[in-house]
Structure formats: structure tokens, C-alpha cells
């Protein structure tokens, strides 16, 4: 059986392909691409690419579970499931002890609280606002004139603490501009931006009232940003586990659920 998990996020579309069953021995493949406006075509391409890596094609996929904000846009899905269920499934497969999943994507952030058996107890998502998401970081990087990949590195040089007052992504841009004109250093602003994102996510984490001893796993594009992860670890006073490829964990969970559909 060959199945795919397809996570159509606001910024990036990710696919994970799993092969299992007799004669296969099991295999894994993934791929991702910017989402764009034609979600069905991009999704087909991403699945095709991931399939190509294991010398298969789109047509070889027997079941597809779609997830993410574009999950209902692909007519070829076998089933659609929310990113909450898919993310929790992926996280638990990678970290069977995890009881708190934090996923920060391009335009949304979510926190999922689970019990010891992996059952979802509560979840929270950011409300109609891009603060505390990848988009916030991207906007800030653009205003600062640095690449998003360098933002975390630059912030490591920070020596002076600046606190950002705006919790709204749009107002934050204005605040960054005024900090730049006020001759604040780029690295200090970058550090403040990370702190602001971490602050929002921290609020979201608090809203699900996590167990003090919860094992925390962070996924999504922003989990690759060491500065945000570090800030959050300091705020929570706990270690946060980040998988090798944090962006595809939700798609991986979708693929696992596709496997279970049978």
C-alpha cells in the first residue's frame, strides 16, 4: 500500500509518501513547494515529486489524506482531516511521550495538549491575526532588509534588549521602521522580533493549561528558527524537542492516518 499525506499550508505545500505492506519493507519520501493560488496543481506536483524520489508517480498513490488550510481544495483527496489531528499523530509517532505539540506555520500557530496515550485533550489556535507566526517573522526580515534564514543568526549578536509593544503584525512593521529610524541596531530589533513571536506562542501554550512536566515538541517552519525556540525554552524553562524536518510533520501525520484508513 502506498499512501500520501498532503499538508497544504498558507505558505508551503508539503507531501509525505509512505509505502508499507507485504513486499515493500516500508519506505518514506517527502517534498515541498510554495503553495501559490492553484492548490490542486501544486499539490499534484509536490506529491509527484515526492513519489519520483522513490521512483513512483502520482498515479501510484492509493490513498491521500489532505490537511492544512487548503485541505478541501483538492478533489483527489481520499479524506480531509484537520492539521490538529494530523500534527498530533505525526508528533506522537516521532516522540511517543510527547504531550504538548506546538506547531508554528506561515500564518497560523497552534498548540495541542495530549494525554499520555496521545488522545487530544485541548487545542488552541491563533485568532485571526498573524502575530506569532512565520509571516510575522518574514515581514520583519523584509523590513530589516535581511533574509529570513539569517534573522535568527543576526539576533544572536544582540546586546541590548528592546521590547516590541505591538502584538499585531501590521503595527509591528511600523514599530520596526520607527526603531530603525531611531537607530536601534538590526540585531537588537531581530532579537525583539523573535521574543515577540515567542511571547504570542507562550500565551497560546498557557491557554491550554499544559502539565508542568509535559514533553514539548515544536514543528512547522518556525521550529527551524533557533532564536524563537530558544526564547520559548527560556520562557517555559523547559527543553523543546524539534524533529529534523519539522515542516513535514503534519503531512507525515496525514500519511499515517491515510495508512489507518484501510
Amino acid at each position, binding site marked *: 500500500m502506498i499512501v500520501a499525506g498532503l499538508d497544504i499550508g498558507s505558505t508551503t505545500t508539503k507531501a509525505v509518501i509512505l509505502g508499507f505492506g507485504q513486499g515493500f519493507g516500508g519506505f518514506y519520501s517527502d517534498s515541498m513547494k510554495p503553495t501559490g493560488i492553484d492548490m490542486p496543481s501544486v499539490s499534484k506536483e509536490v506529491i509527484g515529486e515526492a513519489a519520483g524520489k522513490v521512483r513512483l508517480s502520482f498515479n501510484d498513490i492509493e490513498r491521500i489524506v489532505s490537511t492544512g488550510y487548503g485541505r478541501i481544495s483538492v478533489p483527489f483527496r481520499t479524506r480531509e482531516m484537520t492539521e490538529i*489531528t494530523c500534527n498530533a499523530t505525526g508528533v506522537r509517532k516521532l516522540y511517543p511521550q510527547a504531550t504538548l505539540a506546538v506547531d508554528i506555520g506561515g500564518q497560523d500557530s497552534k498548540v495541542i495538549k495530549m494525554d499520555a496515550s496521545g488522545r487530544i485533550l485541548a487545542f488552541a489556535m491563533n485568532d485571526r491575526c498573524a502575530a506569532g507566526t512565520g509571516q510575522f517573522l518574514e515581514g520583519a526580515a523584509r523590513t530589516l532588509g535581511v533574509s529570513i534564514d539569517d534573522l535568527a543568526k543576526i539576533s544572536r549578536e544582540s546586546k541590548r534588549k528592546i521590547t516590541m509593544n505591538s502584538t499585531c503584525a501590521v503595527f509591528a512593521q511600523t514599530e520596526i521602521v520607527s526603531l530603525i529610524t531611531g537607530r536601534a541596531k538590526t540585531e537588537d530589533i531581530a532579537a525583539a522580533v523573535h521574543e515577540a513571536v515567542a511571547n504570542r506562542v507562550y500565551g497560546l501554550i498557557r491557554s491550554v493549561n499544559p502539565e508542568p512536566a509535559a514533553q514539548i515538541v515544536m514543528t512547522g517552519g518556525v521550529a527551524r528558527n533557533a532564536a524563537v525556540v530558544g526564547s520559548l525554552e527560556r520562557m517555559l524553562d523547559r527543553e523543546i524537542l524539534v524533529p529534523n524536518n519539522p515542516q513535514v510533520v503534519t503531512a507525515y501525520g496525514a500519511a499515517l492516518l491515510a495508512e489507518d484508513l484501510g
Partner: protein
Amino acid sequence: MKKGEMLTGFKTMFKHPYRRAAEWKRITGKKVIGCVPMYFPDEMVHAAGALPVALFGSGEPISHADAHLMTNACDQVRSTFDSLLKGHYDFMDGVAALHVCDQVRFFIEVWQLDRPFPFFHQMWRPFKMDGSTRPFLLKELERLKSSLEKLTGNQITPQALRESIESYNESRLLIRAMNDIRSRRPGILGAADTARIIAAGMLMPIEENITLMKQLISVLEREAIDGSERTRIVVAGHPCAVPDADLLDMLENYGLSVIDDDLFSGGRRCATDVILENDPVEALADSYMNALPCTTHHFPSAWMKSGDDHSPYSDHVIEMVRKGNAEAVVILRMMYCDPFDLEFVFLKKRLEEEGIPFLPLVTQHGPVPLESLRTRVQAFAERLKTHL
């Protein structure tokens, strides 16, 4: 009449909330009083020969009200005020409100300054309901009685008031019967339809409402739906406002069936009768003293029994869950409704303690941006293992 036709009829009534009241006024030449939700004693207005209609605002985008109100006014208040400024209430003869919260008080005072109506009445009902409350309410009811008598020129006799109370009790009984059918056979009546039926009942003469409800119930009783495969949930929260129909439909499209609720346009409206033993004014006062726990009033006697953080309101929601054999609660939080926000803290804690899954959704009056809520609702349904 068929069920579909009846439901369409209620839908149309709710879409044009004041059409019937304006027509009634044209035909009868009598007075129409807009009553701000919740808990205004409609019986008294009815006994004075006037028509009480609930002011639910409208589903229209809010464009006029924000220039007059604070931006943190709840959406129910904003929408009602917006409807006023757009002239939707111009045909009415007056406005009346019970002091459910400070927001209501402030906004109707702004109303009276901005657009004075010939009749304006605020009935005070304390937040804290203790030994001093009943005599106070009696005075308030007498004050309301005389101002309505002055407006209409009709004397509110004990007999007239008694008859009005009986009619309203009958309508409450019928709503309870409808809700009971819904609970026994989930899926027979959608949550959006139920809310619209109850809300529409507050926009027409009570006698018409009674006739329609009787017809509806006999139609429902003939229907063969048992809905036993659906996940039973309770909807709580959302004081005053009628929740967005699309949002309620969305819950049900994901396999969740609302079997009971705590809405003003729902179970709360019909929960307790006015018990007529002696004097009808006293009976009305007693009905406030026996009201269900609510986020807009509290009884220190019940509260102090079990300590500072005891929440009778949470008990009430949990009881609905247990009695209705429900699996979960969806909590509709109207933006900026501070009475509910304060109680939400206790409710959340209690539901967690009881192990009852719940989904809080922050909603707005009027069209709700559904896409932002869809993932939450679907994930909640997945969690409850429905719609898989």
C-alpha cells in the same frame, strides 16, 4: 403544513425581524415596545395591550454604531444600536430594558440621548440576588406597570396580567416540548432552526406564536428521524444574541447535534415558568428569584455554600450535559461580553475537572468569519471521533 415550509416561514420572519410587528401596529393601532434582551418581563407589556418585540440587532455589518459607542461594547449592543441608527426601530413607540449588565445600561442611556423615544424604561435588576432583592423587584415591577399604563392608557389589572402570564407560560411549555423532541431525536431540528424559531417567537404576538408552535410540534411528532448515530453536544454561552446560523449549521455538518443549549434564543428562554399562585406581580418577582444560574446575575447564598470559586452557572452547564447524555460542550463567547468572560474562567476549569471535552469559539454578531472557525470545529469533531 410540512416541516420544510414551516422552517422557511420562521427563517423569513427572522430575516425581516420587525415586519410582523410593524404590520400588527398598522392594523391594530396599538403600541410596539422594543425590549432589549434578556429577561425583560414581556408579560407586563402584553398585559398593557402593547406588543413586546425583542431587539436582536441585525446580521448587517456594523457601520453606524461605532461612532457612538466604545469600541469594546459587545457585538450584541453594537448591532442593536446600529439597527437603531439605521432606522430599523423607527416605527416602535418605545424601548425598554432590564439591566442585565452595565453595557446594556450605558447603551440605552446613549440611545435615549441620541434618539429619544416617547417611551423609555429601564428596569433595574441587581446583579447580586439576595434577601433585599425581592422587595426591590416588586417596586421595579410596579414602576414599570405604571409607566406602561401611562403610555397605553390601559390599566393593567391583575386579571389581565394573569392572562398574559398564562399565555407566556404556554409558549414556554411549547418551546420545552420542542426542545425535548430535539433532545430525544437529534437531527430532527437543526440548532440554527431551533434558535430562529425561538427568536421569531419574540417578534410576533404571543398568541400567534402559540398557534405556530403547536403546528410545528405536531409536524415534528410525525417525523421519523431518530439521529442516534450523531454526537450529542450542548451549546453554552452567547448571552442575549442569537448565534450565527451558519456557525450552528457548521457544527452539525461535522456530525455534532445540539441537544440542549443555554441560549436566550433557546433553553434559557423557556426554562422557568412564572408560577401563578397569588398576586401576578409577586409571581413575576418570584420568577426572577428562581431564575436559572446565569452569567448576568448571581445568588450569594448558592455561591457561599461551596466557597469563593464555586460557580452555579458551571453546575448548570454540567447538569445539561449529564441530563442530556451529551458528550461535549461548545462554548460560544461573544466578543466583549464581560459577564460571560468572567464566568468562562470557572466554566473552563470545571469542565476540565469533570473531563468534559469543550470547544470555546469567539464569535461576533452578524456574519462570522467561518473559515477561521472551521478548522477548530472539524478538529473538535475529529477528537470526538465523529465524521471520520
